[in-house]
């Protein structure tokens, strides 16, 4: 028999928990939901746009009543729970009594009403639910003067909305600067100026003494005696967790309902989530943490019991159209902190980053908030920023996101501006899908619109759109993000489990980490296959059915289903015999097109799959091996002429390129990996946009890492200068091995270096000599098993079924 789950509070936190639970298992509980408001579940953070008439009630509805019916959930909307009877495990709401096996309290918070005389007058309200908004909208039609008490996020949004409704709005704030919990003085002042230009009036450092009126509010009086007229007073001086029910039931509360890392209250049958809880002594007044809390709570309700909530790092954005503001973390510097500031008054731009121990501790952005999510990510992951500190304030875009350049000003773009160049998705389509289909995450947007689902270069733009469309309710990719829907675990957790638990095949990984699907999917299987292969060379048997077709068939699939063939040409060198063999193969197999590639070799297009093995046999007999042009693997080592021929050459770059390629060919990587060797600083081999680049100089070899010439052009970071070719080989292999062992599958070196920080790479490879040598040894060990030409194997009959069609003749 199903157990009974009762949820008190039909808001975002509670319903999100139920949704997460249904995703895991929809057969465990009979669910009943109590909500005081007569609606389904709506997006509370959209109350401000609702007040500003930018949205309608329908548009902010997340789950309408039909949703509850479809999921067999009993919704008691408009029914307020009066008490919880813990002894009989029952909640009482007038005539309605509902027993429970598990109870979730998600009662949210109440506006903090200043305890001043007159606070109970008619026309004095909070700003918390649809009823408050409706109240304000009605008042706005008949009256003129609104006073908002509180110049924080909520107060300013209410003020903006009421101003849009035609009211004269005054904001009363106790502190000297607006949004003093989120902004420093400078940005606060910019905000105030901008709001004043729109017609908002401010009374700063004003202490409200009382509210005057005869039945209905008429005036607000400050302690200094000033009086201002008021037909409507909105108390937005803060919120307090709504803990009345819990207190009444003697559930331990402090400021909020105290919960553990499993979201349980002191009564283990009772869980609590959202703004009513106090976790590790913190009460959150924002929406973002509830997404994490809901996942943890659902995980325990579903009796999996593997997740813990460890608190959230939060960021805020002001939802006032036309004002871009972002704040996260600790924005006021303390002793020992460093502050980076960029100020451009004429552009109305202000950016401030607080840095301690080379990591971002806080960020305040005004006017240009595009990089907010990037800074936020660096902050949460505690990335060492010392390697790119000089460019930090200019944003990710300046770190090499050249792909979109100035178009990045996504907020200002028109609806018909193309965001995703791969799939031809425009801004308007994305924004309306987010609204209509209630999308909260990047993955949601990807599956519904296809934007950012191919090359990923527009991901930051899509994230910015999500953030600006749904406000802070946007479920920013958590730092621990599951690799796909089959698992709760992230890339890092899977890599660690494979290593620490000695998991040596895919079945063990799936079982140990509680995979939700039997066979995984097209996202996780190739990743896990790679991780196993990289961790257990010589032991793990590659699973060809978990390879993307290009790697399974050892050629690049083309849009017509034919394949392309690219033989390896070490260092780009070739002989007349090589070229003759290639020409012969082209004739023999009717290759319709040949092309010289950017990696200095020859691509033969349009080969029929069934011809591949015999064509490879011919090429193999001529001395070629696979070029791995199809693989997440070592691709090419591009070289320039070098000192043998070039009058500027300082070292033998071609020969060094050949040596590098001989060392590294055949190695599987998290993503493709390209190298180059230039014979002098003129850098004809373009070594500084490669994953690993060598620039020869008269006195030795400069080594550069983390470059990319593709989606996002990124110039390499300088790693070190070495004296000998032997060192070049050792450092290149050590770098490749560190990348192979630690980067996430499908993460190029450029984002990897940015994520972990150049300082970390230097520490692993330069400062720790023993570690570098160990990495080099592990790379060479792994190469024993990797440097077996897959083409030759298949020419000899391996995996014949892959290349042999069956025929029915009619």
């Amino acid at each position: 028999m199903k157990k009974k789950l009762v949820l008190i509070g039909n808001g975002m936190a509670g319903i999100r928990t139920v949704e997460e639970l249904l995703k895991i298992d929809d057969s465990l509980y009979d669910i009943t939901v109590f909500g005081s408001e007569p609606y389904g579940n709506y997006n509370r953070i959209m109350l401000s746009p609702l007040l500003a008439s930018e949205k309608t009630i329908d548009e902010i509805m997340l789950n309408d009543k039909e949703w509850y019916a479809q999921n067999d959930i009993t919704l008691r909307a408009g029914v307020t729970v009066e008490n919880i009877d813990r002894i009989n495990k029952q909640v009482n709401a007038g005539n309605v009594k509902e027993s429970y096996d598990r109870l979730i309290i998600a009662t949210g918070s109440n506006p903090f009403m200043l305890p001043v005389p007159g606070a109970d007058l008619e026309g004095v309200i909070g700003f918390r639910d649809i009823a408050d908004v409706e109240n304000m909208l009605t008042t706005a039609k008949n009256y003129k003067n609104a006073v908002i008490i509180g110049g924080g996020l909520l107060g300013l949004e209410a003020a903006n909305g009421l101003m849009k409704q035609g009211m004269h709005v005054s904001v009363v704030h106790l502190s000297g600067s607006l949004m003093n919990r989120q902004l420093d003085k400078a940005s606060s002042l910019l905000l105030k100026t901008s709001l004043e230009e729109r017609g908002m009036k401010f009374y700063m450092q004003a202490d409200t003494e009382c509210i005057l009126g005869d039945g209905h509010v008429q005036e607000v009086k400050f302690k200094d005696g000033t009086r201002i007229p008021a037909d409507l007073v909105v108390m937005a001086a803060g919120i307090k967790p709504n803990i009345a029910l819990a207190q009444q039931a003697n559930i331990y509360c402090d400021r909020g309902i105290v919960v553990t890392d499993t979201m349980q209250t002191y009564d283990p049958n009772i869980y609590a989530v959202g703004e009513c809880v106090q976790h590790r002594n913190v009460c959150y007044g924002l929406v973002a943490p509830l997404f994490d809390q809901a996942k943890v709570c659902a995980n325990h309700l579903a009796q999996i019991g593997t997740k813990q909530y460890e608190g959230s790092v939060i960021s805020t954005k002001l939802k006032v159209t036309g004002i871009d503001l972002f704040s996260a973390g600790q924005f006021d510097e303390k002793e020992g902190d460093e502050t980076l500031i960029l100020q451009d008054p004429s552009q109305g731009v202000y950016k401030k980053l607080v840095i301690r121990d080379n990591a971002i501790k806080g960020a305040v952005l005004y006017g240009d908030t595009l990089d907010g999510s990037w800074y936020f990510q660096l902050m949460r992951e505690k990335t060492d920023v010392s390697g790119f500190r000089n460019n930090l304030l200019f944003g990710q875009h300046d770190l090499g996101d050249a792909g979109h350049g100035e178009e990045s000003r996504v907020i200002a773009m028109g609806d018909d501006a193309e965001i995703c160049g791969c799939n031809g998705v425009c801004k308007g389509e994305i924004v309306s899908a987010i609204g209509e289909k209630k999308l909260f995450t990047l993955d949601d947007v990807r599956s519904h619109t296809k934007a950012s689902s191919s090359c990923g270069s527009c991901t930051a733009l899509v994230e910015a759109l999500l953030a600006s469309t749904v406000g802070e309710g946007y479920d920013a990719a958590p730092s621990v993000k599951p690799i796909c829907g089959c698992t709760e675990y992230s890339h890092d957790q899977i890599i660690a489990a494979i290593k620490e638990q000695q998991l040596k095949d895919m079945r063990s990984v799936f079982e140990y980490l509680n995979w939700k699907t039997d066979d995984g999917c097209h996202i996780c299987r190739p990743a896990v296959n790679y991780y196993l292969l990289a961790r257990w060379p010589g032991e793990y048997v590659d699973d060809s059915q978990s390879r993307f077709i290009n790697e399974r068939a050892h050629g690049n699939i083309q849009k017509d289903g034919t394949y392309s063939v690219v033989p390896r040409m070490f260092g780009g060198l070739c002989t007349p015999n090589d070229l003759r063999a290639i020409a012969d193969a082209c004739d023999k197999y009717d290759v319709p097109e040949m092309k010289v590639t950017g990696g200095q070799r020859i691509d033969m297009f349009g080969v029929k799959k069934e011809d591949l093995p015999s064509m490879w046999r011919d090429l193999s007999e001529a001395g070629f091996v696979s070029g791995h042009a199809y693989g997440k693997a070592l691709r090419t080592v591009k070289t320039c002429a070098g000192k043998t021929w070039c009058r500027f050459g300082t070292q033998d770059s071609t020969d060094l390129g050949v040596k590098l390629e001989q060392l590294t060919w055949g190695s599987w990587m998290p993503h493709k990996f390209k190298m180059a060797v230039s014979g002098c600083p003129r850098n004809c081999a373009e070594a500084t946009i490669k994953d690993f680049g060598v620039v020869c100089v008269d006195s030795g070899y400069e080594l550069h890492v983390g470059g990319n010439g593709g989606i996002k052009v990124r110039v390499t970071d300088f790693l070190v200068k070495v004296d000998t070719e032997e060192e070049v080989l050792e450092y290149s292999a050590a770098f490749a091995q560190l990348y192979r062992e630690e980067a996430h599958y499908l993460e190029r070196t450029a984002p990897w270096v940015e994520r972990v920080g150049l300082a970390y790479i230097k520490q692993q490879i330069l400062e720790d000599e023993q570690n570098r040598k160990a990495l080099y040894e592990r790379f060479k060990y792994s190469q024993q098993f990797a440097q077996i030409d897959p083409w030759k194997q298949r020419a000899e009959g391996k995996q014949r079924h892959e290349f042999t069609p069956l025929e029915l003749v009619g």
Partner: protein
Amino acid sequence: MLAKKKVQASEWIEVVALKDIPKLGSRVIKTDVMNIAVFRTAKDEVFAVKDQCPHKQGPLSQGIVHGSSVTCPLHNWKIDLASGQALGPDEGCTNIYPVRVEDERVYLKVPAG
């Protein structure tokens, strides 16, 4: 291995031994008019669908098989092998053909014509 068979309209034809389709893999059957992909799941269920994604005609036989669906190699559409329907928010459908396994042999019923 090239199995050449004379085809009559709408009859069961033996096409391949079950063991010759890799688990979580497929084989392509070429007919005069089209290619049919025959899939084998981890649980040894066998499905036959037209080897053409409803999106941009990608060869489904080349995709990664998981559960009883396949992900198209061109643009990652997921196709349910039992129904031929695209899964998730994508919409579209490819043809399916009756297929059965008897004594470890796979039989396919191809349409007339």
